[in-house]
């Protein structure tokens, strides 16, 4: 049990002491929604930027605009260099939201176990 008294990956999963109110909301679920919303905003931003980049790519294949190929290639490379990883940063934020939500579920399982531990004797008497 001493491992639960310091902050470790394990102590973050299992509440250190008995919870006062079993129905108290764990903050993880709200945090998860905030993470997901931020992640989606980042991905939407990348999508909005992808429109002009797609237009520049289409210019490259237009024979009438052959003169702009060289400068356009540079511009496309410049944007793609940061847009591609930024999309994955957005995805990482969404995945972090999923993780935070799962973290909350693990804590909730331990809290449910505490609640059941208290309720079972009474339920058995009634059953």
């Amino acid at each position, binding site marked *: 049990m001493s491992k639960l008294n310091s902050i*470790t*990956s*394990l102590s*973050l*999963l*299992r509440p250190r002491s008995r919870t006062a109110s079993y129905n108290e909301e764990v903050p993880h679920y709200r945090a998860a929604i905030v993470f997901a919303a931020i992640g989606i905003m980042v991905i939407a931003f990348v999508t909005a930027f992808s429109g002009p980049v797609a237009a520049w790519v289409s210019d490259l294949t237009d024979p009438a605009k052959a003169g702009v190929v*060289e*400068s356009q*290639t*540079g*511009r496309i*490379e*410049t*944007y793609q*260099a*940061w847009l*591609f*990883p*930024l999309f*994955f*940063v957005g*995805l*990482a934020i969404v*995945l*972090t939201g*999923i*993780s935070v939500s*799962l*973290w909350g*579920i*693990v804590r909730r*399982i*331990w809290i*449910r*176990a505490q609640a*059941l*531990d208290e309720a*079972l*004797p009474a*339920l*058995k008497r009634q*059953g």
Partner: protein
Amino acid sequence: MSTTATAKTPYGFSVNISRKASGETFIHKVANYMWLPMLAMGVMVLAGTFIVGIFQADLASGTFPGSDAGDRANLETLKVLQPGIIFVGVALLLSGISFLLASVLGAIRWAGGEMQEKHAGEVQTPRMPWTAWAFLGLMMMGMMLEFASLGFHIYAAVQAHDYYIKGVPPAADATHLLGRAQTVLAYAAPLRMVGIGFLLAGIVAALYTIGNVLRFQFDRVTEIILGPTAPTGYGS
């Protein structure tokens, strides 16, 4: 854990029966400690790739049209490396999620065991189902494929660098280097997607296992409250 017997429950689970709670297995212990480092590494890798991407963008804006071979070689090297590193970051994040799912299973097993020990006299612990083994196998396979794919990207990046460093435009006798890089990348690209597929399939197996274990727990709690003669199948 002192296992006294194995049995099959009325609702179809093979269980180990013991007097003491079984606690966590080695896999759950690893999962409880590794979920946070894996997630942190995944986020750091992806954030790092974005920062490097900004430098890469700066390099690209100065490289076209025409510039020295060194800048072009560095740009092409980064371009080849970027997706390989990004997918390792995503794989680390998915592994963190997988470890959290294993922690969910561990918490159900550990807390359920303690509860049964205290209130039921005997502890029934479901034996590790094939879906849990599949989950572990798929996760490990997925991680290995991602790192193998990263290895291919590094090799291709070296070839691309060697090609572009040979001058502007690169020497014609060096074209085989570019060909080699393209060939290796053609293998690496689907490989990294297969890796992600394995990791996601592992997550599906873990969720399936959680669903089954919850079904067992609901039935066990009902049995503890109402006694062994209780009608079964509440959790199905």
